[in-house]
């Protein structure tokens, strides 16, 4: 077995793979796209929903490729999936907060415990829907990456991502009114230290079609 495996590269790939599945799942669970465009698949031994629309999958792939590079450089603190109402105000924010990478030797040689943790995250994302209020109609979504200026500058100027440019986020989209925090899950696996929670705007007024 090759012992010279770059742990940062491996953990960034694992995070990228997990993030991709999570984004598809949030899009399905929060009804941001019609349920008919999703297909049921299996990941980490749990059923997940993946979008079939080529532009959506292409967009998510480009986001994930970019995030993977930034995570590998070690400059990311958070990745957030922000749901915006029709007026472009944030109403929900799924936060993937990353801890500092550990240098300690992991006893989880075959990553079984890491897989268990990721399975837990996916299951929690599946039930998060029941903990949140319904979204207003015609919502959109964006991805925000919280990083250091040096990492952002280095990434924005990289030639490999010229066709998928990143810009500083609009301040209006990064500030939420009266946020309510819904913690979902934490993992302290040395390979991937991560915390997942949802911030829900207290001003989300739509209470569903039956009310």
């Amino acid at each position, binding site marked *: 077995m090759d012992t010279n495996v770059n742990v940062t590269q491996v953990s960034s790939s694992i995070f990228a793979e997990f993030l991709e599945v999570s984004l598809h799942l949030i899009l399905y669970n929060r009804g*941001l*796209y*019609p349920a*008919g*465009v999703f297909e049921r698949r299996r990941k980490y031994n749990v059923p997940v929903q993946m979008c079939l*629309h080529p*532009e*959506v999958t292409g*967009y998510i792939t*480009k*986001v994930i490729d*970019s995030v993977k590079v930034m995570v590998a450089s070690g400059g990311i*603190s958070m990745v957030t999936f922000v749901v915006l109402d029709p007026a472009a105000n944030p109403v929900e924010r799924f936060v993937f907060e990353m801890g500092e990478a550990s240098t300690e030797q992991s006893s989880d040689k075959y990553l079984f415990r890491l897989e268990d943790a990721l399975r837990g995250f996916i299951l929690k994302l599946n039930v998060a829907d029941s903990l949140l209020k319904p979204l207003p109609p*015609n*919502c*959109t*979504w*964006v*991805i*925000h*990456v*919280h*990083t*250091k*200026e*040096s990492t*952002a*500058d*280095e*990434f*924005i100027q990289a030639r490999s991502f010229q066709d*998928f*440019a*990143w*810009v*500083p*986020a*609009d301040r209006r*989209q*990064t500030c939420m009114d009266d946020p309510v925090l819904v913690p979902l899950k934490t993992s302290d696996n040395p390979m991937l230290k991560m915390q997942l929670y949802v911030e829900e705007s207290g001003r989300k007024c739509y209470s569903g079609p039956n009310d």
Partner: protein
Amino acid sequence: EPALKYAITGDQSVIITPCNLPPSFKTVENWNICRKVYQNAKIQA
């Protein structure tokens, strides 16, 4: 010079986002309707 800039101002936190927006609900919904029409036509043919 970036290194000089960060030495003077500090390496501040920043939030970045893709310049392109994801496809809208309407675009995806229309695609899904067309897909279903195409699949039905293929079955009937």
